[in-house]
Each structure stands twice: as structure tokens, then as C-alpha cells.
């Protein structure tokens, strides 16, 4: 399976990755929100080559062997981190998608070769193996690391905590065990990533499975019980270094987007909702020169938008406003543009974060939204809102899907989210516009994370600037 030359989708630096060819295919995880009907979730292949006659359509599909997985996030077996100098393995292929079911805890290994348009499930890691070897359950984020595949899990097999990280061998896909040696005060889990140049990893907080599998609990939210902290870790020694509390009113600290340039020691995280005013927050964490400690501060606050209570679902009627609900952010490979999904208000924002402490709003596109139902030229009025984002390596295109999580979709879009994938084209100088020809609707299933053939702006990490 080894290649004779370095896998040509591996790039030493984010700068070099941006010069790579544009993607022609994309993979999107779709799940069946009504698993009672016995239909499995699927990995779909999208044609994203504008020169192709089947542009903007589903051209391939592989169903999962089980039912009720709730496919969510996924990642590659290997990526540019394989070029890291201390444990290089450049001749491993970027070939397999590692696709966990967030609800089922099964991990599917999907082979995208020889024909990426007809991927195959070649291995399934059962929840019992993950539970017995790592003690975890409800698998969430997957990142290809320099030495192994890293995965985050939301909690323990019984549905409580702690959530944390575990490792998979990047050749055999065996579960290697729990990652943490010393977890300190960390209990809640969600996303993770790292600053490879600083030997530091960071994790964020959502909640344990029993806090979200039946939907968000308003009572717990008001009490500030969902996650609101960042944890910084020693990546080498796997020890907890520092806890950064963003404040209990900032509920659900989710996606972590460290600078791609490994010499930069800062990154961005979003908090979904403030219990004070329903706003959402974007924060920067950064390393303080001198003492090497980490600090975080809020750089963007997105306010709730007033709305007619008749248009609002039960939990929001009393507020007469739609919260922006920011569950996802994405950072371009040059660390210049940060994209922010406002899933509640139905808006995708673009900020220039060249100076991470002084962000400038440079673009906005409206799609869907709880009250607005902003239309797409090809899809009519939409529901759901911009949620999962994927930026192309060159930073010129952003792909968008609209479902968050089945139990939460039902709370904010009780009429049922209609799944779709849309795309915006980015002006390299700033600004973006909806691609009027790219709209892929899904019937009876919902799209979640997208990955682009050959890598994208959230799949790879780099050891060289």
C-alpha cells in the first residue's frame, strides 16, 4: 500500500497546500433522522468540478452497514502531518476516511480508492473495542496526527463523563488506547486540535452524552452547565497544562481553529450562546510571551436578532428573538479569513483576522434561518442554516451544510430540517458571493461534515511554516 514517492496531497506548509490544484470531488456524511425506518446513513460523493457535466450533484454513495449511526464529523487516515520531521512517513497514502457514528460509536473505515466515486466500507471498529481499550464512547472529531490518528469522544459508554481523546494506529486502525496521561480538571469534551510547533494540544467543551442525546436541556443551559472552558495540554507528555474559563454564561465552547502556521501560537474558538443576551462569541486564545501561559479573550460578539414570536419554536418564543447560535467556524489556510456559521439566524459571515485581535467583517451571505428562511436561487426558501463549513485549500471556495445534530435540529427547526449543501465563492481580497448554480438538496436525510478530495482547510496540520 506504500507509495514510491511522497503522497502528492501532502504539503510541508499551509502556504504550499494553498498552491495545490482545486478539488474535483467532495465527500459529505449524510444521516437518516428517522432511523426507525431501517435506512442506514451514508457517505456521499459530490462532483465539485465546474467543468464537469455532473457538477453540483451526488455522483457516488456508500451506505453504512448498520442503522442509526448519526454520521457527524470524519477525517483522513493520513495527511500533511505525515511530513513532520520527527516521525516522517511520507509514503503512506491519504486514502481512507475515518467515519465515526456520533450516536452509535461505531467507526467506519472507508476506502476511497481505486475509484473515489465508489468508496467502500472496508472495516468497522465496534463500540466495544473503543470502550474496552480506551474507555470512551460517542466518537466525535478525527484528526490525522504526526504519529497516529487522534479521535475525540464525548463521554463514557454509560453516557456520562469524562470525554477525552484516544488514538488509532494509522496503518492497522487498531484502537491504541486513551490519550490522556493526566487529565487534571478536564471532564467535558468536544473538539481538539494542536499547535504542532509548540507541542501543545487544546480541547473544548460541550457536554456528556446524557446532556445532549435527547436534545439540549434549557434548564441546564440556564444554569451554565454546558461546557465553557478551554484546556491546553502538553502534546508530548499528554498532560493537562492549563484551564481557560471563558465564563459560565458563554455556553458550549465548540470548534477549535488554531492558526495553520505552526510558528503562530494563537487560534479561534466559538461559543454557541450567551445565557445573558443570546449572543454568540468568537474568542482568540494565544500564548503570552514571557511566561508561556495561555490566555483567551472575546474578539467578536454576534447579537440575537428580534423576530415575531409566531415564527419561533417553543424554546425561543419568550425571547422574541433568534439567537445566532454559532456552532462552527473555519479558518483559511493562510490564517487570513475566519468563516462563522450562524445556524440560528441563517447567516455565513467572513472576517478578516490577519490581526487576530482586530477582526474585520468582510462578507455576509444569508441562507435559511429559524425566522428568515432565506432562499437559495436554486433551492427556494430554506430551513436549517449554515452549519458545517469546509474551505478549499486555495481559500477560493467554501462549502456549507445545514444540519447540526438530529435532537437539536428538532428543537430549533421543529418542522424538520431539509438537508442541503451550498457553496460560496470567495474574493481573495475579501468578500464572498453565493454560487447560484451550486445547490444539492437531500431528501429524507441530512448532510453534515464535508471533506474535500486531497485535503481541505481543516483536515491537515503542518510542521513547517
Amino acid at each position, binding site marked *: 500500500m*506504500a507509495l514510491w514517492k*511522497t503522497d502528492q496531497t501532502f504539503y510541508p*506548509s499551509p502556504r*504550499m497546500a494553498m498552491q495545490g490544484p482545486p478539488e474535483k470531488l467532495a465527500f459529505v456524511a449524510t444521516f437518516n433522522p428517522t432511523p426507525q425506518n431501517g435506512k442506514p446513513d451514508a457517505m456521499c460523493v459530490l462532483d465539485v468540478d465546474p467543468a464537469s457535466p455532473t457538477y453540483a450533484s451526488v455522483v457516488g454513495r456508500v451506505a453504512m452497514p448498520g442503522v442509526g449511526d448519526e454520521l457527524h464529523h470524519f477525517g483522513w487516515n493520513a495527511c500533511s502531518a505525515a511530513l513532520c520531521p*520527527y516521525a516522517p512517513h511520507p*509514503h503512506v497514502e491519504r486514502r481512507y476516511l475515518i467515519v465515526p457514528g456520533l450516536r452509535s460509536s461505531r467507526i467506519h473505515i472507508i476506502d476511497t480508492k481505486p475509484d473515489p466515486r465508489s468508496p467502500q466500507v472496508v472495516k468497522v471498529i465496534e463500540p466495544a473495542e473503543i470502550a474496552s481499550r480506551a474507555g470512551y464512547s460517542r466518537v466525535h472529531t478525527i484528526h490525522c496526527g504526526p*504519529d497516529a490518528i487522534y479521535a475525540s469522544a464525548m463521554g463514557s459508554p454509560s453516557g456520562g463523563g469524562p470525554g477525552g481523546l484516544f488514538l488509532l494506529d494509522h496503518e492497522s486502525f487498531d484502537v491504541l488506547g486513551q490519550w490522556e496521561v493526566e487529565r487534571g480538571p478536564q471532564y467535558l469534551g468536544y473538539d481538539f486540535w494542536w499547535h504542532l510547533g509548540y507541542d501543545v494540544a487544546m480541547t473544548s467543551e460541550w457536554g456528556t452524552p446524557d446532556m445532549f442525546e435527547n436534545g439540549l436541556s434549557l434548564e441546564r443551559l440556564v444554569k451554565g452547565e454546558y461546557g465553557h472552558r478551554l484546556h491546553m495540554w502538553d502534546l508530548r507528555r499528554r498532560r493537562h497544562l492549563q484551564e481557560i474559563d471563558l465564563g459560565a454564561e458563554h455556553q458550549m465552547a465548540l470548534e477549535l481553529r488554531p492558526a495553520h502556521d505552526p510558528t503562530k501560537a494563537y487560534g479561534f474558538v466559538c461559543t454557541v450562546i450567551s445565557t445573558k443576551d443570546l449572543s454568540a462569541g468568537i474568542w482568540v486564545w494565544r500564548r503570552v510571551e514571557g511566561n508561556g501561559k495561555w490566555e483567551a479573550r472575546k474578539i467578536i460578539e454576534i447579537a440575537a436578532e428580534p423576530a415575531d414570536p409566531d415564527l419561533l419554536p417553543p424554546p425561543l418564543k419568550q425571547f422574541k428573538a433568534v439567537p445566532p447560535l454559532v456552532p462552527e467556524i473555519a479558518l483559511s489556510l493562510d490564517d487570513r479569513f475566519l468563516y462563522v456559521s450562524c445556524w440560528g439566524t441563517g447567516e455565513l459571515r467572513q472576517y478578516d483576522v490577519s490581526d487576530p485581535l482586530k477582526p474585520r467583517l468582510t462578507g455576509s451571505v444569508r441562507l435559511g434561518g429559524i425566522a428568515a428562511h432565506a432562499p437559495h436561487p436554486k433551492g427556494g426558501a430554506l430551513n436549517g442554516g449554515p452549519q458545517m463549513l469546509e474551505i478549499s485549500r486555495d481559500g477560493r471556495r467554501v462549502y456549507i451544510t445545514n444540519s447540526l445534530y438530529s435532537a437539536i435540529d428538532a428543537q430549533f427547526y421543529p418542522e424538520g430540517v431539509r438537508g442541503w449543501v451550498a457553496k460560496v465563492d470567495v474574493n481573495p481580497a475579501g468578500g464572498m458571493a453565493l454560487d447560484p448554480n451550486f445547490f444539492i438538496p437531500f431528501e429524507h436525510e441530512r448532510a453534515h461534515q464535508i471533506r474535500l478530495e486531497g485535503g481541505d482547510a481543516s483536515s491537515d496540520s503542518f510542521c513547517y*511554516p
Partner: protein
Amino acid sequence: MSGLWPWAAIALLGAYHGLDPSMGWLFAVALGLQENSRRRVITALFPIALGHFISIGVVVLVAVEVMSRSIGLLRPLGAGALILFGVFRLLRPRAHPRWVAMRVGAFDLILWSFLMATAHGAGLMLLPILIRLPSAAPMPAMVHHGHVMPAVAGGALGVIESLAVVVLHTGAMFTTMGIVAIVVYRWIGLQILRSAWINLDAIWAGALIGAGVLCLMV
């Protein structure tokens, strides 16, 4: 002439390890880029070479110890070690020490380089050559005439000679690694990792096995 080729082979193997990105120059370049400092590239090369030196030195030391007891024993032991290790590299070509750290001091680099060279089998590869070094090898003329005299027909390498093996090998490795590191850092850039990094895993594993067989034959 026959006295020179083992030394040339020792130096060439050193140069080969110096060229291999996973043996050190790439780490030195990465540290230089991370700290934006050419000085850092150069200072990293010394501990990396020292780690390599120790890894090779341990193998030579063990070989000399075995030779001092019985020159005949080194052949089967060396051959066995090489063939077994070669088969392991063939089965698990990308097995390497688990190491995730860019913030490294000199001691870390010595340890890292020692582990990488050892896991690669860098020192083992010298065994067939050690057996053939003049003081270790039986004098061909004597054997032909049937007058094998134990004192002359092969003995352990002396201290000076053993040290010369390790210094020559590591010196060649250091020189090559240093030139590549500086040239890549200053002029070529890391694009070369995509174009010129050929997979020699299987060939190297085959060479280890071949060297094992050679041990038995020479």
C-alpha cells in the same frame, strides 16, 4: 586496494544516512524554520550526529566484544541479527519510535537521533564490513597456503580502529546532513519533500537481509 574498500563503504553508508530526511537534516531544518534562525539549523546538527554516533558505537562495541571472544561467533550472530531485523523492516516498514515534539533541547535531539538510527538498523549494516576489516579478516594468502595462524588470521578490532569506524561513518553522515540541511534551508525549500523523497523502505530492508547473507559468505 582491498584495504581501502571497507573504509569507503563505511563512509558511503554514513553519507546515505546523512541524505535520509528521517535521520536528521529535516528535523534541523524544521527547528530552524520554527525559530526563523539559520543558527538553529546548525546547532541542531551536532546533537543529532552525536545520537547517531552513540547508536553506531554501541553496535561496534558489541561486535568488537564478540570478536574478542571468538571471531567465528560474529558471523552467525551478525547474520542472524541482520536477517531478522531486515525481515522486521520488510513487514513493518514504517515502524518508528513514537515521538511528538518540536520543542527539543540538545539532550532530546541526542535521544531522538539515537532512537531513529537504532530503529533504522544503521549500525547493524556495518557488521559485514567490520568482519572484512584487515585486522578482523583472515589474511587471504595465509589461508590459501593452509598455514592458518590464529594470532594473525582474524582478531578483534583495536580501540583505534573501532573508533575510526564510528568517527568516519558519523563524520560522513554529519557532513552530508549538514550540506543538505543548509542547502534546503537557504536555497531549495521544502518543496523537495514532495518531489525527491523516494520510498527506499523495501530496498533498505532487502539490503539488511542481503548484508546478513553476506556476513555468512565473506
